[in-house]
Structure formats: structure tokens, C-alpha cells
């Protein structure tokens, strides 16, 4: 159902709220609610393949968590637990990045009446993630061509070969993107308009309501 329209603000809001809720509600109860909610959202938006991949990853993470508990490795189990708990948020973030262009995100964030500088910074950061994965593939390929393999025998050296170019690219890219925005009036003081319709629809309200009910349910469940 790719035609199902969802205002990116809904995703942004939920993505900000969801991790903070772990402070107030016991993760054992909140986590399944969030996972079901995010999974349903993926299906609703038509990301079937991604849903299956996430389901498998989620199961693997859970398996690792219980496996570590069973073997008495509490510390490592905790690591996997944190990862499993943040997994629903990763799902949401992945939708946010792949479904909306930076222009749409920019308009959505503007609607929240945040300062322009914050909006621009957030948009650039969000859009850097797909760029990062493209650069990642490119550097991996280039390491292969140079005959510098990513080996477990030399983990630190391998990691360094990998990270140093990324950091330099990151700095260069940040400057380039800033320049590209600056020469196109990103600092204009007038209220920014949007070419992409971003009305708040009844579906957006419904999604938020379901989310709120789910969280409330988790809170009640946790108290019982």
C-alpha cells in the first residue's frame, strides 16, 4: 500500500517519543507494543520485504539475548537487550529516510516551528545516512582493489582503513551540502512553503491515536 500517505511529522514525533518512554515504562512491556506498532506501520506503508527482514533480525536479536542469559553472560545479554529495545525505532527511522526526500523532511520539520538552523541541521543529518551507506560500499570496493582486506586478524588496522576515509568524506560532504543550501536561499527569513502536500489527514490522527493507546496499554500492563 505505497499509496497510503503518512505525514512525516507523525514518524518524527513517534521516533522522538518512543525511546524516551523507556524511562517511564518498563521495557519488558513497552517493547512488544512498540515492535507490533512499528511492524504494522511497515506493512501499512507497503514495506513487506523490509518487514520480513526486520522480523528475522528481531528474532535473531531476541535469540541472542536469551542465549546469553542462558549461558550466564549477563553483561552481553544486556547489550543485546538494549539493541532489541531500540530496534522498533530503527524501523521507523528507516521509513523516514527512504520514503521522504530531504525537501519533504525539511518542510515537515518546519511545521513543528523549530528554529531554521535546527531544521537544516536535522535534515542534513538524516540525509547523510543513505549517503553514508553509499560511501561505505564504495570504500569497501576500493579496499578490495587495493588488496587491503578487512581481516579479523588485524581488526584495529582494518577498522582504521575503513573509518579514516569516511571521516574525511564526512567533513567534506558537510561543507558541500551547506554550500549547496546556502546558494539556494536556505537562509531566507520568509516562511518556507512546500511543494509536497503535507496536510494532516485523518489517517495521521488515527496512527497517533493507536500509538497513544498502545503506550497507555503498555503502562497499564506494566502496573498490574
Amino acid at each position, binding site marked *: 500500500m505505497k499509496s497510503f500517505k503518512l505525514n512525516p511529522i507523525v514518524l518524527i514525533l513517534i521516533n522522538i517519543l518512543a525511546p524516551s518512554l523507556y524511562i517511564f515504562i518498563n521495557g519488558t512491556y513497552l517493547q512488544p507494543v512498540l515492535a507490533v506498532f512499528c511492524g504494522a506501520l511497515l506493512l501499512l506503508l507497503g514495506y513487506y520485504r523490509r518487514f520480513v527482514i526486520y522480523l528475522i533480525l528481531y528474532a535473531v536479536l531476541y535469540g541472542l539475548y536469551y542465549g546469553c542469559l542462558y549461558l550466564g553472560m549477563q553483561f552481553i545479554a544486556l547489550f543485546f537487550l538494549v539493541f532489541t529495545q531500540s530496534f522498533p525505532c530503527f524501523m521507523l527511522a528507516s521509513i523516514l529516510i527512504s520514503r521522504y*526526500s*530531504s*525537501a*519533504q523532511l*525539511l*518542510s515537515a520539520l518546519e511545521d513543528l516551528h523549530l528554529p531554521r538552523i535546527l531544521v537544516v541541521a536535522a535534515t542534513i543529518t538524516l*540525509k547523510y545516512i*543513505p549517503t553514508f551507506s*553509499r560511501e561505505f560500499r*564504495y*570504500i569497501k*570496493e*576500493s*579496499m*578490495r*582493489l*587495493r588488496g*587491503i582486506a578487512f581481516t579479523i586478524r588485524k581488526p584495529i588496522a582494518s577498522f*582504521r*582503513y575503513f573509518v*579514516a*576515509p569516511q571521516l*574525511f*568524506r564526512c567533513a*567534506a*560532504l558537510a*561543507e*558541500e*551540502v*551547506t*554550500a*549547496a*543550501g*546556502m*546558494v*539556494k*536561499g*536556505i*537562509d*531566507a*527569513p*520568509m*516562511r*518556507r*512553503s*512546500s*511543494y*509536497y502536500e503535507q496536510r494532516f489527514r485523518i489517517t495521521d490522527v488515527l496512527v497517533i491515536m493507536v500509538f497513544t493507546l498502545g503506550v497507555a496499554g503498555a503502562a497499564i500492563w506494566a502496573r498490574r
Partner: protein
Amino acid sequence: MGQKMIEASELGFTYADSEEGIREISFEIYEGEVILLTGNSGCGKSTLLKCLNGLIPEVTEGELNGHIYVLGKDREGMKMHELNREIGSVFQNPRSQFFTDNTTAELVFPMENYGYSKEEMDRHLQKLTEDFSLQGLLDRSVYELSSGERQMVALASSLTMDQKVLLFDEPSANLDYGNAMKLGCLIREMKQKGMTVIVSDHRFYYLNGIIDRVFFMESGHLRIYGSEEQFKQSGYHSRSFDIFHLDVPFRENAGSDEEVLSVEDVSYKNILKDINFNLRKGETTVIVGANGAGKTTLAKLMCRSIKPDHGKIRMKGIPFFIMQDPDYQLFGTSVHNELTLVKKDEESIKRYLEHFGLYEYRHTHPFDLSGGQKQRLQIAMAMLCDKEVILFDEPTSGLDVSSMLKVSAEIIHLSRNAATVVISHDYEFIRHVADRIVYLKNGSIAEDFRLNKENLSLLNGIFHEMQEEVK
């Protein structure tokens, strides 16, 4: 003479972290003028452009002196968004030209920033689409466009606000011959409409006959030539205007008999069909073809990054591949370390460091080198690597003529012990290095010949054909 668009008086800029910059520059630019801004790398061309579009002092740090007036208004009192309503900019790097990743989003992006209504945006978008023939390019990912298409979208998006002045930073660096000539025609049209165009570039064959004045930069100082003719007589590589009449001796080199690579009946998806050729040690082969002809795919096949659907590539190991962007290829902690990653042979490393003028930089981090030094380091790596095939991807894009000549000499030197393959659309450079030309057209080899006096007309014919294709 029309209205005065830009005026600079005693303009100077010094970067916070380097010696480079511009000094006491004064000029006036009028409506409808086409200005070529040229000079060797590091002469201050980009700095001047950045002063004009406001990135200096807004983004780049340093000390700015003097004044710029845009349409009579002092730049100092103008905000970026006011300035860029008058001046549009097209950047050199195709990756950094875009703020968004979708062509339509990119085209409306400036209008959104200036708060246009949806109707106004639609109207403007319609006009841009017609003016720049963007019909097939709307609502596409910018990453799937060819470099010519990308240039077209970048150009259109920098004129969304009906800017009267347009700045280009090395537009030909990433364009093939046909697309560069097409850009020349577009600039001519803009001039006829009364626009002011300032083009900073090392190559200017595509601007032949359109330039009003030439701004020549040298170590941060500006010399103005009053006409194209006057510049042509100055002797500064001005023969580059007429690339097909260059007087470059032919290499008359047949290579050795030692075959190091053979490509047999190779096909890949619908990009390449039945490709056959052999490479021999001692020979430099240049692969030419329009953007999208399959040159990069062929390089990937030779590097075994992808597997052919059909056919075989026979070769010992993989070639040493010198990418266009060295930043992806440097992994060492210092210049010396970078070379030891290739081969631990101290004696040869020292020899190459000295040969390439990098010895004093041996402890420097490769990323701190200049663009030219990085490229020399890549070539030093290729010399050290003992591989039988060395592959170059567009090694001269963005190089000034003297750097291009240096790279040519190094490639010829390199080809003594290996077969070198170069992907290039730089005619002048091709004339200097090529022993053999392989012309890829629509995924097949259309021509494969030795470059000599008799066959020169074949090469020229290929370039004319590429120009016809984009028309």
C-alpha cells in the same frame, strides 16, 4: 554596453589556513557578457567565484578586503538569500550540486525557501522544464542521472529565481565532449537573452566564439583580456580553443608482444555486448565513448567488481585501478605508509617519492596533500605495484593544461612495464598519451585502431559523432 551587474574594487581574500587567495582585484561586469575565468590550479579562480556568490565570507573562513557591488548594491549589506536571488551558481562537483536527492524536489527547493505558493512553483517548474528540455528528467533520483543530465538539472535549478547572473565552476570537468559542446550552445542562448555568464574552467574549446572577455588569474592577481581574440594571442595554451588542430607528435609505439589481458566475447546485462580485445605490455589504450556507453561497466568487469553474463576475461590478478577521486583510495597514515601498503621496498619507495616531489611530504597524512599531490601519490603507487594492467578513470578531469601534460608524461612512463588503459573524454590529453583508441558505442566496440597520422581523422570523427548524438 548594458547595465553594470557586478563591480569589484580592490577585492582581496586570504584563507584562514593557507597562503592562497586573491589580491587587490578590481573589475566591472556588464549585462549580457560571457566572461571566461581561467588560470592554473591554485591561481584563485574558485576563491573569486566564492566571493561573488557569497560563500566567502559566509561559509569559508578568512580575511576579506575591498568591496563587491551587485546591481549597484554593496554586497556587505546583503544577506545570502538576497544575493542569490541575483546570482545563480553551478558547482563543479556533481555530488555537491544538489541539496536534495530528487530532481523535482531540487528544482522547487529554492522556490520553497523563498516561500512561493504551490501555483507559482508549478508555473515556474513548467517553464524550466520547457526551457531546459527536462521532460524525461522530472521526479527522478539524482544518482541515476548521467553527468550530462545532472548538469542540466543543476543548471535549471540554479536559475529558478530568474537570476540574471550565472556562475559556473569548471562545468566541463565531468562532461563528455558532446555535452560540453551542448553546454556551449546553452551559454550562447543565455547570452542572447541578456544574461551574464561567468565560466571558470581549464578547458574552453566549447566556448569558442562566445567569450566577451577573459579574466586570467595568476597567483591571486587578475589580468583582463578585452576580447577572446586578444586572449588567443596571449599564448596561454590558447590553442586549446581549437582542439582538433593541435600539433602533437604521434607516439608510433606498437607495444610489446606480451599479451597481459584478453577480453573474449564479454557481455553484461544490456550494457555491453560481445566485447573482444587484448592488451599488451608497453601500450596505452584509451577507451572513449559518450556518457553511458558502458566504459565504467567495462572497467568494473576488468577489476572483477562484477562478473560478465557471458564470455571471459583472462588476466593475472586484477588491474591497479586509479580512481577519479583519490580520497576513496588512500588508506595510509602517511605518504610513506601509503606506499608500504603497496609494497615494502624501501629503496623503490624512496626513489618514487623523490621522483614525484613527495619526499618532503613523506610523513604527511595523504588527506592533507593537494589534489595534484594526491594524484602523483596514486601514480607512484601504480609504479610500485608490479601489476601488469593499470587502469585510469578520467585522470585529467579538473586539471589545468600543465598538470595534464605532467600526468600524460607519467602515464607514458608507466606504460613501459605494464599495459595502461585510460578512460577519458579529454581530447587534448588523449592526443598526448594514446597508442590505441577503443571506441565504445551503445555497448559495443565500434572502432579499435592505432592512433597515428593516418587514423587521426577516425578519432576526430568519433568526437564529432558524440557531439551529434546529444544534439
